[in-house]
């Protein structure tokens, strides 16, 4: 059985509006979490102490008084100070959209604004703990290709075809990405060798930083846009929120490596003819 997720629902500051905190606490209990509610008027230090003492996975902060920009980051700062930065901090309340980037930069993993369903909030929390009931989406069909960044496309093609015996499907230039790509067939999937054609190309920057090597994994999917929307709603950081035309007449969109444990993942789907 999965370990029970422990959540501290906390009211920082002097705000007395606890309808939301109480409702979310009960909803989380109904979702099977263990929930501790701090009650009103907690200082960030008190909240952090309770969180450590209660050994929680998540702190949910609720503030409707407008003091979130002062109080939420202070909780994150104190967690770090106490070496408890593994505790994830999320927040909610009367929080203007324009404050969210600031809060996220200051370590608030997710801000839930009014109108968020309690089920979505619970699912997000599960996802941060590597737990999930139903997966967000059906499995992709296959690995469409593995992208490999190379400095010299022709030399690399030579190696893969002559030494490893792979079959070259073709070479094309993708103007929008400022790259030249070669596709090599292997079973039901392919390798994609990518060479930059300009210094501004993302591949050139990748080569500068990391040198030659595996650049991305592309998964073949259907309903590409729906999947992107679902990921976005689940708080997964995307590089492309809408797909763009890539090589081989594929529509492509990348997920941010920050959200995928360091792997650049591409979702691709054949462009409709």
């Amino acid at each position, binding site marked *: 059985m999965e370990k029970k997720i422990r959540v501290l629902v906390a009211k920082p*500051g*002097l*705000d*007395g*509006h*606890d*309808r939301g905190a*109480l*409702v979310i606490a*009960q*909803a989380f209990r109904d979702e099977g979490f263990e929930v501790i509610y701090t*009650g*009103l*008027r907690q*200082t960030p230090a008190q909240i952090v102490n309770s969180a450590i003492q209660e050994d929680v996975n998540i702190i949910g902060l609720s503030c409707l*008084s*407008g*003091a979130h*920009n*002062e*109080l939420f980051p202070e909780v994150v700062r104190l967690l770090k100070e106490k070496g408890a930065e593994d505790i994830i901090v999320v927040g909610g309340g*009367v929080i*203007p*959209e*324009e404050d969210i980037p600031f809060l996220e930069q200051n370590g608030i993993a997710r801000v839930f*604004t*009014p*109108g968020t*369903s*309690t*089920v979505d909030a619970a699912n997000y929390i599960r996802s941060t703990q590597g737990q999930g009931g139903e997966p967000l989406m059906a499995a992709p069909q296959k690995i469409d290709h593995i992208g490999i960044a190379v400095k010299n496309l022709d030399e690399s093609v030579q190696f893969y075809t002559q030494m490893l015996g792979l079959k070259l499907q073709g070479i094309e230039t993708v103007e929008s990405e400022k790259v030249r790509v070669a596709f090599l067939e292997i079973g039901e999937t392919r390798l994609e060798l990518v060479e930059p054609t300009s210094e501004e190309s993302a591949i050139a920057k990748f080569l500068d930083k990391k040198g030659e090597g595996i650049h991305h994994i592309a998964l073949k999917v259907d309903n590409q846009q729906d999947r992107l929307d679902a990921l976005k709603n689940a708080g997964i950081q995307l590089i492309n929120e809408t797909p763009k035309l890539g090589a081989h007449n594929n529509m492509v969109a990348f997920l941010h490596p920050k959200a995928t444990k360091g792997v650049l993942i591409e979702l691709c789907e054949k462009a409709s003819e």
Partner: protein
Amino acid sequence: MSKKENKKSIEKWEKSVNETVAKRPERKAQFATTSDIPVDRVYFPEEMTDEYMEKSGVPGEFPYTRGVQPTMYRGRFWTMRQYAGFGSAEETNKRYKYLLANGQTGLSCAFDLPTQIGYDSDDAMSTGEVGKVGVAIDSLADMEILFDGIPLDKVSTSMTINAPASVLLAMYIAVAEKQGVTSEKLSGTIQNDILKEYIARGTYIFPPKPSMRLITNIFEFCAKQVPKWNTISISGYHIREAGSTAVQEAAFTIADGLAYVDAALEAGLNIDDFAPRLSFFFNGHNNFFEEVAKFRAARRIWSRLMKEKYGAKNPKSLQFRVHTQTGGSTLTAQQPDNNIIRVTIQALAAVLGGTQSLHTNSRDEALALPTEESARIALRTQQIIANESGVTDTVDPLAGSYYVENLTDEIEGRVLDYLKKIEDLGGALAAVEQGYMQREIHDKAYEFQKRVESGEEVVVGVNQYRIEGEKQPELLRVDPNLGKVQKAKLEQLRQSRNNDQVQEKLSALRTAAQGNDNLMPLILDAVRVYATIGEICGVLREEFGEYRPV
């Protein structure tokens, strides 16, 4: 009594009202529809049965179901009172003058959370909260700026202040003194309702017993010194905001009211000395007819209790006079302009319910404090209902509707059931301490959230009729440096005032707090020498302790 006799008593009432109106005319000499159909002051049923007389009667008389005044809005409109306050006393003073210039007829002060919980702006507990949800007041010096250029003998002021209500009332009296206005001339309201703080709103300081003492001290002091002041505004508003139903709102408000009456009687006051100054505060929510019925039922229940249970004689003791604010928690962050329509419907319900004063929320309040433009639209909403809709031309126009009368009776019955339950638990104070009301409200709040999430309850723009990629409107931002500014002001104050006097007044207050004297005069003394709210509440915290919820 026979129907004939009932008819006669109504004719007698009409005659006496006509005599009063001859002296103090209504808004118009004649009221008529657009088609020149004359509009009567009040419409009555064809047959004046005993049942009608017992349940409804005439407006301005027991049991007040049809309204607390005989002519209601034909005489004058309700007081349009927009709750406002943010940032510094200077900024808020500017907003007050703006609202008064735009036709608002009374002031309503919002204080920041440190003020409401009795902390100075430089207290560690105040971090991040200074000036956020209301104006920051640390001492009389801030209060002088807040009401600068506003004649306190001309406007009435409502102050949303509870645990430290006596301190803010004392400051108001002291500012008036400086304007040369004596306290008998002051009119206004302090919320002063600690029970609903424990139940729903959360800005309590002291435990119930000393809190009830402070409240009854105010009743007693004002009866003599500030006779036109509403000494308490017994509030269902926050109970409703916390998620209660209309019935729970009315029931818990009335239960709290009874607890205050009992406490005052126990303190040795006479019912007719303080009961006329009790006022109430309701929420104007979405379910239109139920809301109208809620007001009608509450008036009937309160007047019967005051007359039959407590033997009040003064007609004013029997009147459930109520301020209304539209329902803040019904506002949505999504498509905020839709909130103007919600507010209109809710405000109309309050008016048809016969409210004495009204605050209409601004469209952007689910996002931040209202901008000046949003606050103006909210005020205009009331002015349109008052001047253009015609609903103000006759008293209690929904009376006699089968539906509304049925709802009124149903609410009355269910409220009485709740009152019985609370009485069995030992009264409102005991019920609060056992967490009874809190649980009842929370269960309803949770049920509602689940219904919204299942789609059973439609919230336009939230779970249906959504639009993607909404742009956020421009919002009011409170100066983030205000905390520092207030701190500097306090530092200066502590250097420039006579600190010996402050210490003397504070220690006199401490001694009195240990005994049984009325604390109001001592608080007034301390305020006059510029003792801060944190210092005064600090003394009381040390003597009384602090409330810890169950």
